């Protein structure tokens, strides 16, 4: 029974990914691509990805931007509020290492200075497919999660 429960949980966690998004001083570029990933052309909802309005509901925190001092503490608070198991995904060159803003006086070098990051998606901005790929990689934990052979047409 216990193994059934845990199998069920594993199954469910791979198919239901609720994300919350924080803009920690980004340029909007990454943010619109996250939104675009949810819109009809890319439709991340196919994979069970849903954008939720509260960090309490979320499994995955998507962070974009260079993390300036005003947003740093706020990002930490949002992370605090997420229930376990929680994951953080850094999206975009800015969130990974400051990107093109690297030596501006008001930015940090990557959000991993504030919260532990599980997955990095580089790009400026990463295209929606890259974000979908990243989320899939996060939940499956495999290096190349693209299910080329599987024909899910729904």
């Amino acid at each position, binding site marked *: 029974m216990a193994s059934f429960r845990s199998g069920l949980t594993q199954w469910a966690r791979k198919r239901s990914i609720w994300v919350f998004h924080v803009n920690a001083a980004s340029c909007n570029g990454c943010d619109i691509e996250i939104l675009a990933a949810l819109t009809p052309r890319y439709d991340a909802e196919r994979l069970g990805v849903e954008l939720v309005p509260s960090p309490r509901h979320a499994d995955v925190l998507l962070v974009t931007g260079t993390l*300036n*001092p005003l947003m740093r503490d706020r990002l930490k608070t949002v992370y605090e509020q997420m229930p376990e198991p929680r994951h953080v995904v850094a999206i975009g060159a800015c969130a990974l290492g400051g990107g093109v803003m690297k030596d501006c*006086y*008001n930015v*940090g070098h990557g959000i991993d200075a504030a919260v532990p990051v599980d997955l990095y998606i580089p790009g400026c901005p990463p295209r929606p497919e890259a974000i979908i790929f990243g989320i899939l990689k996060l939940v499956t934990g495999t290096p190349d999660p693209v299910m080329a052979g599987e024909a899910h047409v729904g």
Partner: protein
Amino acid sequence: MRRTSADPLQRLSAKLGGALHPERRTTLLTVDPSKVEEACLGVASLPGLYHLSTITGVDLGDQIGILYHFWEGRRFVTVKTAVPKTAPRIRSVAGALPAATLYEAEIQDLFGVAFDGNPYAGKRLLLPDDYPAEAPPPMRKEADPEKIRRMMKLE
């Protein structure tokens, strides 16, 4: 450049004891800091020139230059003044031109120029509230971005 509106500018400049430099697209009207409000109001009341594009702060070495850009048609009219770094203080034009409020607040934040009479006087607009007091305003030449980042514990 249309002569009709250039002439009133000349008159305004003469009245304020300023200097007028017509450049390619921009007519520069240099005045004393104490006359800025009058100059700005004078320019803004010229036909079509009511639009204040923005206010720019420039570090000129031991002075901070302040430029008020007005726009009409194919030209800019820029009122230019400068305040010394040792006493960076100037009267706000926000009372006469409300559009200036946020632009002045930005310069106050980034260059440390005090604008007397601006609603944001003494408040932060762009920088964090706990921006280190010992750090110089970030846009001044003497400010070192590396040091500021360290002071704000970003590294």
